[in-house]
């Protein structure tokens, strides 16, 4: 048996010892690579099943898995799904299984490997996955789910963060109810940080005499980068560029917002209670220059007011009272509810009641499929698309698992918004508020990213209807280093009071020295971010494809990219096999979960990257005449006032 400190035994009743549990995560400019490794020994005289069960964020791409069982190594390769299945069926491994299991958790899924260990056997599991960090409500959140399952002799979690933009703050909130106070160690410089979590065996115990581990939950690291100095950051490396855009220091644009709330019978109880609680806070957060109204619907459609009203204290108070009195009952007529909301906004616009510089949003909250009126989801989608104007964005929140989330997602993506699924329980209110807060502060409209040089190709979505405070827009692309040594970008947008044109120039080797200096920095981060964005955008586009041919074309591209970048996506599977190739396991991605998770707040579109809007006319600085009269050089009077920085 393997002892812990002071000779204490670490074995559980089943005589399995977890020798080490290591998690190493590196974030290089929002590109995160995580490795989870577990070493287990079977000290029992009998064979035992051992499970390697890790939760990974939905939307992360698994890139590698390996397993060593008593000297026999199983390695992984990425194959197209049907190919992977065929290979697996040829040589199923005995006593070993692997799989990706979709969980009911909204944001995580399980990777599970189970093997039967012989007495005295030693096994090492190692899983690698990649993801992108998205900024939400002013911070990036890196979550590592720790579930060693038992006490570990060596439990080590290391997170390295490398952000060339510089870190504004970083902290590790307590997510273990105080059990590990003082255990996480944070060392932070301007552009780099390291978080280490290495509890001793004694610290891991639930109580001093317990044999269960208290390490069951998430280690969370939150940080944000400096934004005061520049509005955007263009990073160029290795033939790829990534453009991060999240300007601060802009006043909010007034918004016209319609809340469309499902009050059918299924909303009765905690869902409605939580929705009312959230709505009261949300209404209080509206700004004086905003306009709003509420549409509640079951089999009928009601409006609190027939028109938009200004968000004055009186109106807000009245709206809150209205919402509080709602009694959910009846069926669900989503079609009519949305058309009514669109009508209210269109009418207001026709009557000139909307601030020409404002942003119009519809937020739909629903827990079920339509049961009254138009039932065909594709027809509802078509009706909305036909009536909604180009300047209105539709966001959808699906409560619970009875709603057709795929429909909500298509509906929103098609109309310049996004959808999100939330739980229907005591957390509904906070989830609703959190979602709203992400869109409550529009700062820019019509944001377009242009990269004028013809050597720039394969640019991801670069045209966005809105930019919301607290978030970040990310655009990536490729360029030919042989033809370009710097990338120029021109970002155009409309703020609350001006048109904005932002020009940025980034050199190819700006980052090289910086990245070479840190062994943890990932030199492929630009490539990975580009691939991550492209694949996720293609997956979303695929679900909106209107013809089979388009869908096939997109599928082919996603598959090609998944294989090239060696990642498990909905179109690929991971085949895990031994050196002889006669024992195989298959980790097959669960059917594409539409509630997952590009992670972004934005569903944009693509415009030619060199198509700068016509109103942008970056005029050269006007030639102000230099009126210098030739004169003999004389000693200057008064005393010289030249400031020479270099000679200081």
């Amino acid at each position: 048996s393997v002892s812990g400190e002071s000779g204490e035994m670490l074995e559980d009743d089943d005589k399995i010892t977890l020798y080490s549990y290591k998690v190493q995560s590196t974030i290089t400019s929002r590109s995160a690579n995580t490795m989870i490794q577990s070493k287990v020994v079977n000290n029992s005289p009998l064979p035992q099943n051992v499970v390697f069960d890790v939760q990974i964020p939905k939307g992360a791409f698994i890139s590698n898995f390996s397993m060593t069982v008593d000297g026999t190594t199983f390695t992984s390769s990425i194959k197209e799904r049907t190919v992977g299945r065929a290979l697996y069926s040829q040589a199923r491994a005995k006593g070993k299984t692997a799989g990706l299991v979709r969980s009911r958790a909204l944001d995580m899924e399980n990777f599970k490997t189970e093997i039967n260990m012989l007495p005295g056997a030693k096994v090492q599991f190692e899983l690698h996955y990649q993801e992108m960090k998205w900024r939400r409500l002013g911070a990036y959140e890196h979550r590592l789910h720790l579930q060693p399952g038992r006490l570990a002799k060596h439990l080590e979690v290391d997170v390295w963060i490398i952000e060339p933009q510089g870190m504004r703050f970083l902290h590790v909130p307590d997510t273990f109810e105080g059990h590990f106070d003082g255990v996480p160690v944070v060392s932070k410089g301007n552009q780099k940080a390291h978080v280490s979590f290495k509890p001793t065996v004694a610290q891991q115990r639930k109580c001093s005499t317990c044999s269960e581990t208290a390490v069951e939950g998430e280690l969370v690291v939150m940080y944000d980068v400096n934004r005061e100095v520049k509005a955007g950051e263009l990073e160029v490396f290795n033939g790829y560029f990534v453009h991060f855009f999240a300007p601060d220091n802009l006043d909010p644009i007034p918004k016209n917002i319609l809340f469309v709330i499902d009050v059918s019978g299924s909303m009765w109880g905690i869902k409605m209670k939580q929705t009312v609680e959230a709505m009261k806070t949300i209404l209080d957060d509206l700004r004086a220059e905003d306009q709003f109204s509420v549409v509640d619907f079951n089999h009928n459609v009601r409006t609190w007011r027939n028109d938009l009203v200004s968000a004055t204290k009186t109106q807000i108070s009245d709206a809150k009272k209205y919402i509080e009195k709602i009694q959910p009952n009846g069926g669900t007529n989503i079609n009519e509810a949305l058309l009514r909301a669109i009508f209210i906004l269109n009418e207001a616009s026709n009557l000139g009641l909307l601030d020409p510089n404002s942003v119009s949003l519809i937020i739909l909250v629903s827990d079920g499929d339509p049961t009254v009126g138009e039932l065909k989801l594709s027809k509802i989608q078509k009706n909305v698309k036909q009536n909604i104007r180009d300047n209105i964005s539709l966001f959808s929140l699906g409560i619970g698992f009875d709603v057709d989330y795929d429909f909500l997602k298509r509906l929103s993506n098609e109309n310049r918004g996004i959808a999100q699924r939330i739980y229907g329980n005591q957390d509904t209110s906070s989830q609703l508020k959190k979602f709203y807060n992400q869109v409550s502060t529009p700062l820019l409209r019509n944001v377009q990213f242009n990269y004028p040089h013809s050597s720039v190709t394969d640019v991801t979505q670069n045209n966005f209807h809105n930019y919301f405070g607290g978030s970040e827009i990310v655009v990536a692309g490729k360029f030919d280093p042989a033809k370009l040594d710097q990338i120029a970008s021109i970002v155009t947008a409309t703020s609350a009071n001006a048109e904005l044109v932002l020009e940025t120039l980034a050199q190819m080797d700006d980052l090289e020295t910086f990245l070479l200096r840190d062994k943890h920095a990932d030199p492929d981060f630009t490539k990975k971010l580009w691939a991550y964005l492209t694949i996720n955008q293609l997956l979303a586009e695929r679900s909106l494809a209107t013809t089979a041919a388009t869908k096939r074309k997109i599928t082919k591209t996603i598959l090609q990219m998944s294989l090239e970048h060696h990642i498990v996506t909905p179109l690929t599977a991971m085949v895990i096999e031994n050196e002889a190739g006669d024992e195989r396991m298959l980790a097959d991605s669960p059917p594409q979960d539409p509630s997952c998770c590009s992670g972004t707040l934005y569903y944009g579109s693509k415009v030619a990257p060199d198509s700068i809007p016509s109103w942008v006319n970056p005029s050269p600085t006007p030639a102000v005449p230099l009126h210098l009269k030739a004169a003999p050089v004389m000693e200057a009077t008064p005393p010289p006032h030249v400031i020479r920085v270099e000679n200081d």
Partner: protein
Amino acid sequence: PHFIIYLPKSQKNVCFNIDSEPGKILNLVSDPESGISVNGQLIGGKKPKNGKLSTYFGKLGFYFQSEDVKVEISTETITLSRGSRTSILSWSDTAHLINQRVRVSLKKEKTVTITLDKEMSFSVLLHRVWKKHPINVDFLGIYIPPTNKFSPHVHGLIGQFMHEPKIRIFNERPGKNLEKPEASLEVKGHTLTVTRGLQKDYRTDIVFGTDVACWFVHNSGKGFIDRHYKDYLVPQLYSFLKW
């Protein structure tokens, strides 16, 4: 602050300094008829040098009344306000902010150019100094072309010269310092003693500047500017001259 006034008809440069105090706001252009004002707020060096504290422009304010647009330029940020709404950029950006007739063009760490339609422009230069310098601080310079179309009643330390006064320079002679000739300047009914000197135009070379030979009017431009320089002190960054 060192003022250089180019008089196109006379083909002469006349210069003067305004020696005031940190925090004070000087009016540079006041044109209520066009609804344009330009003011500059003074900042001081970190400490006196040779017993004297240098002052510079640390902040400039532009007000375009007809557009209800205010542009504030400091050594850190550029702020465009319209009504109650604000957009702020930093000197680390290269950008343009366009609000109907007003366009603000920012060149990273160098210049801001404000144009009103295509009829008027103002250039602001950023002078960055070594942060650890014991005395010097970042400051701003402003350049206003004589071709700007102001109203006939424009005034201010610079504005009053948009409509060029007649001058006569005569009796050039050696000065008290043999290397600094003097002359007599006849302007606005006064005859002033002026000294030949060199000022700097930093538009083409931000560090060393280009020499501009000019006739220097002593005592904060007394006799060359209307009234006294203290009459050009205003309460706020967007004020017009009251007199």
